[in-house]
């Protein structure tokens, strides 16, 4: 399944960053995407581990989503940048290279060794809790509240997404 910028905008709409995925919103975000000011490479590399393997187009989705989420929210931006630095630093320490250069297996292992698979998310907590909050849950939230992510698991209108009032009436074969 191919993720698109439009999917990212739909995900952003459910977080209040963009209302209506119109052309204006698209170009507005274009400027922001031009200067990604968190470590997008690491974030994309994490997303590739978190999202189902059949998903493609992850970079565009993540860049657009994160640009929207962090712009004009300095605290959130700082929290995310800081958590990404933790991920990268552990990758260097345990696997001798920047996170984004590791293969999928080692990236997965880095996140697990960090505890990000099991620790409760905590924006103010210790590094693993912050990684779970700002990186892992951030990316999973974007994906599974979007119609693209929902559709992969059985709902084109997951909670958190303003998908209207006809989908609930439709049967599975419609």
């Amino acid at each position: 399944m191919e993720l698109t910028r439009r999917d990212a905008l739909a995900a952003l709409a459910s977080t209040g960053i963009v209302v209506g995925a119109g052309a204006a919103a698209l170009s507005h975000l274009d400027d922001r995407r031009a200067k990604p000011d968190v470590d997008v490479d690491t974030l994309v590399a994490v997303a590739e581990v978190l999202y189902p393997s059949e998903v493609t187009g992850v970079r565009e989705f993540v860049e657009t989503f994160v640009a929207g989420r962090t712009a004009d929210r300095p605290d959130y931006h700082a929290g995310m940048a800081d958590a990404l630095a933790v991920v990268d630093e552990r990758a260097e320490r345990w696997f001798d290279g920047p996170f984004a250069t590791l293969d999928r297996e080692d990236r997965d292992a880095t996140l697990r060794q960090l505890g990000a698979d099991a620790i409760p998310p905590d924006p103010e907590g210790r590094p693993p809790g912050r990684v779970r909050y700002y990186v892992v849950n951030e990316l999973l939230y974007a994906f599974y509240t979007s119609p693209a992510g929902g559709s992969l698991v059985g709902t084109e209108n997951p909670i958190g997404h303003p998908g209207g009032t006809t989908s609930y009436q439709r049967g599975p074969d419609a």
Partner: protein
Amino acid sequence: MSQGDVDRTPSPRSDVCIVGAGPAGALVAHRLASEGYDVVVLEAGPRFDPDDRLERMERHIRPSHGPEDVWDMGGPRDAYTNAGEEHYPLNAARVKGVGGTTLHWQGMVFRLHESDFERRSRHGVGRDWPIGYDDLQPYYAEAEAELGVAGADDNPFAPPRAEPFPMPAFRPSYSDSLFAEACEELGIAMHSAPNARNSEAHDGRSACQGYGTCKPVCPSGAKYDATVHVAKAEGEGARVIDRAPAQRIEHDRSGETVEAVVYATPDGTEHRQEARQFVLAAGGIEIPRLLLLSRSTQHPDGLANSSGAVGRYFMDHLFAGMGGELDAPTRQKHVGFITSESHQFYDDVDESVGPYKLEFLNYAGQSPVNVALSTESEAAWGDALAEEIRDTYGNRIAMGGLCGQPPRAENRVTLDPDVTDDHGNPVPEIHWSLGDRERRTIEAANETQAAIMNELGVDVDWVTDAATTGPAFHHMGTTRMGTDPDESVVNPRLRTHDLDNCWIASASTFVTGGALNPTLTIAALALRAADAVDAEL
């Protein structure tokens, strides 16, 4: 305007002072301000910024935030204690702020049945209301128009109505159609469920957008909440002072007339709001608490409490439900509200069993994002997580229901002298227990639910029964209405028997509670109280 710039000093020449800006207070404020009166509303909680709603929704969905965080509940301001057999989680059951608990509510709205007003004469239980369905019927119609209710006249068990609903009902869900087959086999009639939620653009608010998070927050504003009537009241010139909790009520020397409400402001000062008439609309817990906190030489047991009934006869509705897996997709969690119910058994009341209603849920089980974000899930991420979500989401199905609780004097709200809030006032202490009548009613509801689930072929894996039931968060009965001042707190016009200018707009005036969500009845009573206050002025 920053918080520091807000003027929280009293209004100099106020006709009406209202305590509480939930639906009851907002409706009274709007109606009386429209009549040209000078109205001031004191609200304990803050004015929430509507632009924050998506962030509040995210707090609800993301597991790092507790349920009380969504509307900033909890802490010393909201402290309470429990003394009864059953634990009552009070701060999950209310919101303090402009809009009140409707910010969090689900928004299903029903008229009580005629029988609910006559429980004593029909079944020997509790007391009859001093007014009947006929008296409230026109106010119910007005309340539906004010809130904006989407409904259809297809419920054969509902009480009589003279006019159509303001908006068409939401269409039944796909899972309703699954239930319908089973119910037809069993001879159980399903019908639409009225919602205070826009099925189309209405009253300056958009149609429902399908966020699916109605309870606890509707980001689109399609779900009615009382900020609607606060804004309308302010448009008519009413003043709403937020973060201004009433501390006590003061009366004149005779003890028969209220002179002022004393309230606190964030800077630590206390003010006195004087007015000609006072309307208490602070909900079924805080109204009796405020009256008890306002005791005086003339009213040693608390204001308006010569009957001793203030705080007593606390009732809630009890939840009964069950759910499980079907071997086919059920299409849940697209929206966060109910489209079909059955009130077929509602009036099968007798000396031993009370009323209950059945709900066919559209939000059984967990949503994909809930499974994904939870560290309780087996799989952390990747293909394994997607697989786990496909397994957990998709085939869930569930029914709910509400069961009535009769009034009992020992179920009550008192003051806990040992625990104080952020202003040094004793906190509310909730004494709540269940009796055999509601246990039997829950059993009856469970039996019907089990028959439907069985007919549908559901593998039931959870049941909420008489042992595991909990409250539906409807605070009723604590200042009940009646004609006898020795037995009740307010008269049928909703004025306290003891004080000639003190009115109560709340489910606290309910004599019995039926088994239907209370807010439409609260709204109807609020409009009735507003008319009575208007006549007095």
